[in-house]
């Protein structure tokens, strides 16, 4: 009985880990698609030349900054317009994708 429960628990845990991993992958894939609009200005290499680098950021910080453009707390007309057009899901996907990248040396 104990063994059976343990197996079920382990199986359940494995399933939930697997499904959250799938969700994370999907977020990164969706983020990669959405990033097409970002990368002409925010370079994937992490170079920051008049436009800040956004690679390798903490995901929550990323979403927070985008939200602060959405509420117009932060100034930058282009970013405000872009952020207004992004849903929470899209911001999280972008955060997942850019967060997964490392700046080039």
């Amino acid at each position, binding site marked *: 009985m104990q063994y059976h429960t343990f197996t079920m628990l382990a199986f359940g845990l494995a399933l939930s880990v697997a499904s959250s991993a799938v969700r994370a992958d999907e977020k990164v894939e969706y983020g990669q698609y959405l990033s097409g*609009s970002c990368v*002409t*200005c925010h370079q994937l290499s992490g170079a920051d030349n008049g*436009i800040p680098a956004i690679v390798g950021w903490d995901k929550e910080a990323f979403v927070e900054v985008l939200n602060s453009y959405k509420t117009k707390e932060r100034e930058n*007309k*282009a970013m405000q317009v872009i952020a207004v*057009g992004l849903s929470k899901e899209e911001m999280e996907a972008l955060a997942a994708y850019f967060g997964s990248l490392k700046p080039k040396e």
Partner: protein
Amino acid sequence: MKLTRREFNAAAGAAGLTLGLGTATQVFGASHSKPKVVVIGGGTGGATAARYIAKDSKGGIEVTLIEPTKRYYTCYFSNLYIGGLRDYESLGHSYDKLASEYGINVVHDWAVTVDRKKKVVVLGSGSMVPYDKLIVSPGIDLKFESVAEGYSLADQAIFPHAWKSGTQAKLLKAKIEGMKQGGTFLMVPPPNPFRCPPGPYERISMIANYFKKNNPKAKIIILDPKDKFSKMGLFQDGWERHYKGMIDWQPLSSLGGLKSVDTANGEFKTDLDTFKADAACVIPANTSGQIAKTAGLANDKGWCPIDPASMKSKVDGDIYVIGDASVASAMPKSGFSANSQAKVCAMAVRGELTKSKVFPAKFANTCWSLIAPDDGIKVGATYKAGAKKIEPTAKFISKNGEDADLRKATYEESVGWYDGITKDIFG
């Protein structure tokens, strides 16, 4: 009954025909190889589309890019070169990485016709390039005859349009630098619709910046076929602040239109007045690059209608048109737009060929213009694919009275963007 290639393949497959039979080899070979995408035009739209398809298909799609020039000089930022703020070679970009890092077959040749029935592009050299999907990104051509009676291609050597970059940009700069002290520089901007709506006015700003330092008594006259222009209030405010008294903008409607241009004597005759120019920039009306018309993709206005969700041509389900030549409705004809449309197109093409995921189309554009060193302005928007056309979802534009720090930051953003977009296009 005439067999299509597909029917022949199916029959050949069913009959278990082996390789070795002449015609069968070609057809059989074609059906077993990777899907082929051909891109006509290696400018901002075409090169972006080629790179994204090659990169995101991970080698699953064979991409051929047909582009006559071996080094691409961007039209955007050419005004900064003309104004002396940027060097010429910084505008130039090579196709090397697209060939060596992305495995794209870069063919330096002209696409002369498209046989849409056979799905083959015919090149100037005579080579025939088959496609499963074709992306046409030819940019613009100029309608010289639309300027005034007798105006032709020959006149671009004296009054450069520099509305395609490279040699013409260098020529225009030489004309500006060679103009006599205290002379008159004249510009005729194009009528709507044209590539880069704020471009002629940024150019005027940059020329004025050059004159301010090197030819302070020079005058600039603009004879505009339009009654208003992009970011007009912002430019006029900037001209007043930086180049007071130098620039005179006149709509041709108030002069009765441009009747004739005498290139030899530098005379521009309108109904009311004749203007004498010591140097000039004449930008004729724009139209789609010729290949789009030859391929039958353009409407009677000379631009190519597309399906907004994918940039697919409304004329042919296997052909896509992106960039300046497309009817992209609310999106201005710009490099930023071409690059944005290319990515939507690349995603749609990969979806059709490899069943990869296709997300809803999203587009964006930002146009930065430099009025004077460190005084930059911008205008832009985000867009979605509406049911019938591309529609804006939100817009922004700079405002008069912004402080110098913001204007400087706006300019610096544009420099960062130039680096970013050219890497995004050429690798």
